[in-house]
């Protein structure tokens, strides 16, 4: 009996060891792409399909392996840990933060400058983005996506509460919230874990409405920020019980199962809504409320989310990476990614009318709202220093449960961000 067990274990061990040590064809170049695009997400399905196609086309010569990890913020943390360990992921994308250039300055990222040519340069919406991504004379990231954040609301639930149109001012907005609450509907989806994305979206919108789009360029303990914090605190009266301590997936899910009526997020949720909701056409995208009637709205965007690659790749691998990225940024592929992925890309894409229709109403609204905006402002958590960024959940929760005041919120934020 024991001998059998022992030999079984040995067999398992040996087979697995053989599997760990990848037996690969010598000529084939491969690299691993780290991503978080799950199949449920808008971009997930098309992304995987595109990778498959690329692999098929280049079979025997280049192979792209993928490493999937669902949770965005922990994935970002892991990437930084990997860079610290001296083994950065082969290819990945991340949130570019002009106030935290640790990744770019680590020397672990591949320099794309020698590979960037005129043709590629003009594939991007505005070549000035490349300038922003050039640090110390080196271009270490290639633009990928930049999401726009709009207010998705459930018209059916609005009708049920007797609300006719989406509020144009913040006063109306809170009145709408009251009305929804009275009808037994939870108004907004929020969560506080990781980067408190939904809550901070609101916060950014509040602050930008009060202090103008450049409010984050100034010190963070300004009256505008304090007022925004107060409004954020008020907002927590209008959300679900699992908002505190909750995660992004839970918050979005609350909107999908029609527990809440308003979701403030980017285009990547569109597919989740289309697939998960009973009647996705009830969801409409609207612009943010402002302070005064008729005041032009500003548009919140995610930060630029660019590609980056490991500097420890071999020359052949680097060339393969460049080849892949150029292919990905080509007109044809980019179009498919935008349309099927319901995505807003940083690569120039000209959609015909019928392609517009295929992309769907919600994406079209996204694009329309984005172009109609007066100003754009980047979501605040994306440009904070790491010390401030990691304290956001604690600060937001503290605000929500009355442990800290709005003034303390602003003051702490400013102190951590110095």
């Amino acid at each position, binding site marked *: 009996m024991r001998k059998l067990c022992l030999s079984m274990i040995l067999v398992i061990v040996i087979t697995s060891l053989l599997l760990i040590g990848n037996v690969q064809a010598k000529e084939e170049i491969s690299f691993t792409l780290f991503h978080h695009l799950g199949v449920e997400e808008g971009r997930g399905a098309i992304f995987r399909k595109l990778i498959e196609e690329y692999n098929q086309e280049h079979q025997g010569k280049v192979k792209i392996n993928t490493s999937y990890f669902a949770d965005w913020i922990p994935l970002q943390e892991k990437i930084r*840990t990997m*860079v610290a360990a001296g083994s950065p992921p082969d290819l990945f994308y991340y949130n570019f933060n002009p106030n935290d250039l640790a990744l770019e300055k680590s020397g672990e990222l591949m320099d794309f400058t020698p590979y960037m040519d005129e043709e590629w340069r003009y594939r991007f919406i505005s070549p000035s983005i490349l300038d922003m991504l050039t640090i110390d004379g080196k271009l270490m990231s290639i633009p990928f996506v930049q999401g726009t954040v709009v207010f998705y609301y459930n018209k059916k639930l609005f009708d049920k509460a007797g609300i006719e149109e989406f509020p144009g001012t913040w006063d109306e907005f809170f009145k709408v919230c009251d009305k929804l609450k009275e009808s037994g509907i939870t108004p907004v989806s929020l969560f506080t874990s990781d980067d408190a994305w939904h809550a901070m979206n609101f916060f950014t919108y509040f602050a930008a409405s009060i202090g103008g789009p450049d409010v984050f360029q100034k010190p963070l303990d300004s009256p505008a920020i304090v007022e925004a914090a107060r409004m954020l605190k008020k907002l927590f009266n209008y959300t679900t019980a699992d908002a505190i301590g909750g995660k992004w997936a839970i918050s979005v899910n609350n909107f999908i199962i029609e527990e809440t009526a308003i979701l403030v997020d980017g285009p990547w949720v569109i597919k989740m809504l289309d697939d998960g909701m009973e009647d996705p056409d009830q969801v409409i995208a609207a612009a943010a409320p402002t302070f005064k009637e008729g005041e032009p709205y500003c548009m919140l965007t995610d930060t630029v989310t660019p590609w980056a690659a490991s500097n420890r790749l071999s020359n052949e691998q680097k060339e393969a990476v460049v080849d892949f990225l150029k292919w990905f940024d080509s007109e044809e592929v980019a179009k498919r990614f935008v349309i099927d992925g319901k995505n807003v890309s940083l690569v120039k894409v000209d959609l015909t009318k019928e392609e517009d229709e295929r992309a769907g109403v919600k994406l079209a609204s996204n694009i329309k709202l984005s172009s109609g905006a007066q100003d754009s402002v980047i979501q605040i958590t994306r440009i904070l220093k790491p010390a401030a960024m990691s304290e956001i959940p604690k600060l937001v929760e*503290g605000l929500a449960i009355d442990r800290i005041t709005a003034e303390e919120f602003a003051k702490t934020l400013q102190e951590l961000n110095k």
Partner: protein
Amino acid sequence: MFIRVSFKKVFLYLLPVVLFVTTFFIFPMFFIVPISFFSWDGISRMSFIGFGNYFHLWNDPGFRTAFVNTLYWIISAIFLHVPFGLFIALVLNRQPWGWRFLRAIFFLPNILSVASLAILWYFLFNPSFGLINGFFNFIGLDSLSFSWLANPKTALISTQLPFILYIGFTMLIFYANITTIPLEYYEAAKIDGASSWQQDLYITLPLLRKAIVINIIFNVTFVLRMVEYPLIMTGGGPSGITMTLPLYLYRQMAVARAYGITMATGFITFIIGMGISGLTFVSLHYLGRRWE
């Protein structure tokens, strides 16, 4: 008693174990202290800041909360958990009907991974569909259905409560030890007219000294290692309320990438762990002397 052999002979037999143990237990000790005097984020260069990290920890309310919470946990481990496990072991010792089955049930949570139990209890505490609130609603005590993990008043207890699941381990160690006590002692005591409680108090307890020490040490090291419960259930709690030392350590390392502080916190954790182990050893040693 033993055959004498030269060192040369045993060398090869000992080498692998000693190698591993030195690398993983001795070597790190010499790491922690020096680096804790630097500020480092793993990528850029280290910069010497003397006791700066320790001052930072002293002033950081997050660390203070973590420290206090962990202390609560340790205290409940030593003064609630261990006695309770002892009590159950004593009762089980009398072998009531079905004791084997009971023993099996008590030990079950110990073999399941901490992560799965943590996420299980995360679901149990969920305000909308969790079993706990469901139970309270069912029996009509609606007022007791809190948002357990989000409410600052209940969050801490909720993350520390599942620790009681691990009582099986404590109990079994006691139990195994109790069964080695020769029955004659009990016989003699019975003849002398001692009740079962008195027997336990005067015979069992003193002889269980060693087991008590072991249990305290194991439980304390377990608490100091347990990152899963606060991490999975609350992520540190509403506004840092449920933070504990090991979670704080993990956060500093993986999220904030403040390696100097990580080392400093690690050092403090290490001191606490070794300190309590040492204290337990010594105090029960002397108590034992007195008892005999």
